């Protein structure tokens, strides 16, 4: 294998870790409440803009921007849950799809209206320069994003499987009535799930803002990436999302390198359709 190919794969893995991070938020609410958030990609977009505003107004880098974006988006998640999701969850399918889709439009075009359609970007050296080892050149911002995303996704998995909060959330996902009889409030647990899911998108957005193009419509592409990741990894599975996210990152950057940059989205969409059509349970999911 040539060095360039290794370089491309490493880049794909680092980006894939971020995909895994925001997709695990989608898979969490999907598995727990059986509701699909069509605005998920736009949450990531909001996270990117929060990081951008933090930089332009306060000159703060990701050390300030990332926690703030996480916090802001977690708040957005809770507000969205209580104002919208709680009610449309019980409604007909059309209402569920329309509700989150409308939210996506509302967020996307509010940002569009405020910031305009221009491509924004952070200064290239906001995190640090480019590291070189063993012939590979890795930008510090991508390395930071990949490593932090990987750690947080793993932490999310531990939170869901090893803590009492995680068990309570799982109980609500399994059987609301039974959980309620055990003294668990489904409402609180679901609100927490939305806070975690949206917070993860905020962090992911702040991390990729350092090297991605920042534009209001970026949420559409990222939303589809999240859908692909979740359908590949199995609905409701965080480890599945992690593996699938890394895989998609690699597939995307490989196809971008081998076939051409404009076709990398097509490859991802076709992969998505393929999985929906022929293996809707994902690579290893069971929900």
């Amino acid at each position: 294998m040539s060095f360039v190919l290794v370089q491309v794969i490493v880049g794909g893995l680092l980006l894939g870790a971020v995909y895994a991070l925001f997709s695990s938020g989608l898979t969490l609410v999907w598995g727990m409440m059986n509701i699909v958030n069509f605005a998920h990609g736009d949450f990531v977009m909001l996270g990117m803009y929060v990081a951008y505003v933090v930089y332009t107004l306060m000159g703060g880098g990701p050390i300030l921007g990332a926690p703030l974006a996480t916090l802001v988006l977690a708040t957005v998640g809770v507000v969205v849950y209580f104002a919208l999701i709680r009610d449309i969850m019980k409604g007909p399918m059309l209402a569920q799809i329309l509700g989150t889709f409308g939210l996506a439009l509302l967020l996307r075009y509010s940002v569009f209206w405020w910031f305009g359609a221009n491509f924004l970007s952070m200064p290239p050296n906001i995190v640090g320069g480019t590291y070189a080892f063993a012939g590979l050149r890795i930008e510090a911002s991508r390395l930071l994003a990949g490593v932090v995303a990987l750690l947080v996704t793993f932490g999310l998995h531990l939170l869901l499987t090893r803590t009492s909060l995680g068990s309570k959330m799982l109980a609500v996902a399994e059987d609301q009535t039974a959980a309620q009889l055990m003294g668990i409030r489904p409402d609180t647990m679901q609100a927490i799930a939305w806070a975690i899911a949206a917070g993860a998108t905020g962090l992911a957005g702040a991390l990729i803002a350092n090297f991605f193009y920042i534009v209001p419509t970026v949420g559409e592409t990222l939303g589809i990436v999240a859908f692909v990741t979740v359908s590949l990894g199995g609905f409701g599975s965080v480890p599945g999302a992690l593996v699938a996210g890394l895989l998609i990152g690699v597939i995307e950057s490989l196809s971008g390198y081998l076939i051409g940059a404009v076709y990398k989205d097509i490859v991802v969409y076709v992969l998505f359709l393929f999985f929906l059509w022929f293996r809707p349970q994902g690579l290893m999911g069971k929900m």
Partner: protein
Amino acid sequence: MRRLIWLLVVAAVAIAYPLLLSSPFQQRLGALVLLYAIAASAWNIVGGYAGQVSVGHVVFFGCGAYAAMGSYAKFGLSPLLGIPGGIVLAVGLAAIIGVPTLRLSGHYFSMATIAVAETVRLIVTNTEWLGAAVGLSGPTVPRNIFDLSFLSSLPYYYLFLVVLVITLLITWWMANSRMGFYLRAIKDSERAARSLGAPASRTKLYAYMLSAALTSVAGALYAMMFGFVDPESGLGILISVKILIMAALGGAGLLFGPLVGAAILVPLEEISNSWLGGKGAGLTFVVYGAIIVLIARFQPGGLLSLFTGRSKSKIDTSKTDTSKTDTSKTDTSKTDTGAGHAP
């Protein structure tokens, strides 16, 4: 009887509108309302009656638009001759997409249709023969009447009115035929409909194909009126969204729902665009988004359901009761399957 009077009033208003309000802006507005009403009524067949929320209908819209412009730009023929080609293309594509995709339920179907639409848009954007990102143009100067290129919006208005009436008649006929009953049964509960012998897959596919054909006609008419099509105006996801919102705002699954939705949203968009200029483009979709969220939250049946609900309140109370028990049943079945996975 009251229905008939209402129908006559609506028809009279529709015919008289461009003669009474005859400024070019008003006539154009009327034509656009009718055009979007055609597209939204076509969507209504599969999205409203069959309950399969397609967010990728713009693919069929694009089939019609590209066929109409292509027949001029590539073969020098009248755009009108592209319409049958567009219909064939849309129906064929609907069959190819529909067979695997209609098996998916609920959200999964919607997501798959988005992915299909975006894939097609990206492919067309990168295809030189279809004009890539620039798109295809129609005749700049009409050669004869069959080019359907008019300066005034008046001829378009009456053309669209005729097509809309045909679309509504087809929808009405379908809703009252065996197929309509099957579709409503499938929408309420696909499993129950199948167990009673309704051919669910085939009926959904037919509805999807019919809807695709009518949507492609709307796309062709759109391209003829504007004289060009490009990937954004012919295949952009926002067209799907507009169509869907209009149907949902008026009332998905109701015959006149899409028309009501279009009559509210198209003027809203045009007026906000002309008042706010370039800045308005973003704001229009902010308003759209807010409207959809509000409908989903407070009136998922659409505006027209307010009236139909009142006129037959007796039947409705029994209906809502059964629907309530239905949802509780599906809830328990969901949790059952969830528990089934537990060891």
